[in-house]
């Protein structure tokens, strides 16, 4: 492999890493906030606000329904507003994050809903404030699922980021398309596939390990 080609790989790899890590960080934070909001404001929840809950849920569904590549284009004006440009890695991070927020919200929501109602009831009986129930009961008890969901998210993000080449964000997927698809350099395509498989496998195993670490249910 020529030094220039190696540089291209390195650059693509770091672009992918940047896109994935930043959008995952943003979407996990916001997704978790939204998930807690949805669970807490649901009918019978800690702060029941059925109408507000419905509205948030509909918005999340809208973003869940739109395929990423379409979202990418549809969000261009918004992206320009936020990062000042519609090209490059940062321009991809905006639609990637929004796409993933909706996805992660639902994953985290399921984990939070699975927390045994008896625990919440016990906390009420012990005189916990509602916020303390979220902080000390719901979040820690849902943690294994929340962490497991993160793994799924990182992997989904590695996939979606391959399409971010469309806005010139670079990354491994973009490299594969430009060399492998457009120039018929199947060797590049193959090598990138190997790198992606290695990356996804590492994330998967790392995520599973972390999930086990925080899971004390057995």
């Amino acid at each position, binding site marked *: 492999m020529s030094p220039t080609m190696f540089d291209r790989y390195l650059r693509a790899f770091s672009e992918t890493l940047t896109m994935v890590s930043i959008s995952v960080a943003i979407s996990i934070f916001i997704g978790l906030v939204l998930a807690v909001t949805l669970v807490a404001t649901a009918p019978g929840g800690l702060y029941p606000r059925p109408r507000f809950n419905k509205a948030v849920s509909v918005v999340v569904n809208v973003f869940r329904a739109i395929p990423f590549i379409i979202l990418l284009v549809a969000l261009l004006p918004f992206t320009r507003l936020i990062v000042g440009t519609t090209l490059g890695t940062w321009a991809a991070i905006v639609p990637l994050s929004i796409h993933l927020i909706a996805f992660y919200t639902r994953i985290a929501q399921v984990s939070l809903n699975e927390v045994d109602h*008896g625990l919440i009831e016990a906390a*009420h*009986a012990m005189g916990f404030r509602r916020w303390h129930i979220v902080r000390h009961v719901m979040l820690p008890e849902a943690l294994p699922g929340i962490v497991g969901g993160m793994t799924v998210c990182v992997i989904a993000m590695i996939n979606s980021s391959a399409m971010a080449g469309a806005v010139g964000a670079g990354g491994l997927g973009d490299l594969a398309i430009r060399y492998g698809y457009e120039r018929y350099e199947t060797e590049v395509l193959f090598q990138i596939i190997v790198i992606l498989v290695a990356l996804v496998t590492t994330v998967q195993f790392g995520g599973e390990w972390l999930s086990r670490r925080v899971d004390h249910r057995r």
Partner: protein
Amino acid sequence: MVREFAAVPAVVDEIPEAAPAEAHVVFDGVGKTYAGGVRALNGVSFGIRRGGVFGIIGRSGAGKSTLLRAINMLERPTEGRVLVDGVDVARLSEADLMRLRRRIGMIFQHFNLLAAKTVRENIGLPLKVAGVPAAEVRRRVEALLDLVGLSDKADVYPAKLSGGQKQRVGIARALVHDPEILLCDEATSALDPESTASILALLRDINAKLGLTVVLITHDMAVIRAICDEVLVLDGGDIVEQGPVWKVFGDPKGNATRALLSPLRHGLPADLAARLQPEPPPHGGHAVLALRFTGESHPDGVSLANLLALAPDAKLLHGGVDRIQGHAQGDLIVSVPVAAMRSAVGARFSPDSLKVLGYVAHDV
């Protein structure tokens, strides 16, 4: 001595129903209709004595949990009032209700321990969220671990504990705010007999040592017999009866109560039942009698002399006597030669305490 067996329903209120002044918790016409129209409680009124162990029994769906959970407002009644120390708990502000709940510990059938926290963290959390300083939390948790005998398990996660140990953690956690009332909803239902016995001993111990009022629900009549002072029987959202355990168990008035208590009673064994005839056989034979002691007139015990006086060759076939709150009560099934019965039995036993179940041709 003859009066020993008399089931005279003399109404002597030895332990009077809790007067409002000494009642810790008072239910005043409490009714509950769940959203969807299920009527769980039909306006019940009663008092729970301070410092006692109060049992609630009833069939599944009778409204026991609804009743218990009205004390700490986990379930809000739709009618009536629940007074704790004279305060209507439904009218407390959120902050005051929180304070009240810290004075009322609760333990659950499925323990409801946090899986993500160690035993120590589980017990200490209620204090931590109440803003108690860490050193004080630690001191208090150590004391409670010692009380429930789990000092060596402080740093393990609940998943690694047996059911009995989990319930001990539940009890320690419930006691962490030094409550005045402890609510137990089927706290021993998920435990094996040995763990049940040890948890009951612990509850009794806590009740005696700390003087807190214990209110418990159970499906196990033996639990009531073992540790309760008073028992309330619910059926279909209504109170069937209420009173000292020995009285309700010795002489149950309601059908629901009798049905619930039947596992404790020594009924007629099936093999014997199959051999019974309604009339005495022509050549003598034996009468099978059921004797019932309610513990009312001679609570201190059942005189053997009186049993022997039935007939020299009377036989004890089946039965048992339990001492509940110092009152000996139970059932005995005996066989007596018909000839002896005619002369002796009628004179010695009142019709209430003795029933002729039937006759057998030969000795049993």
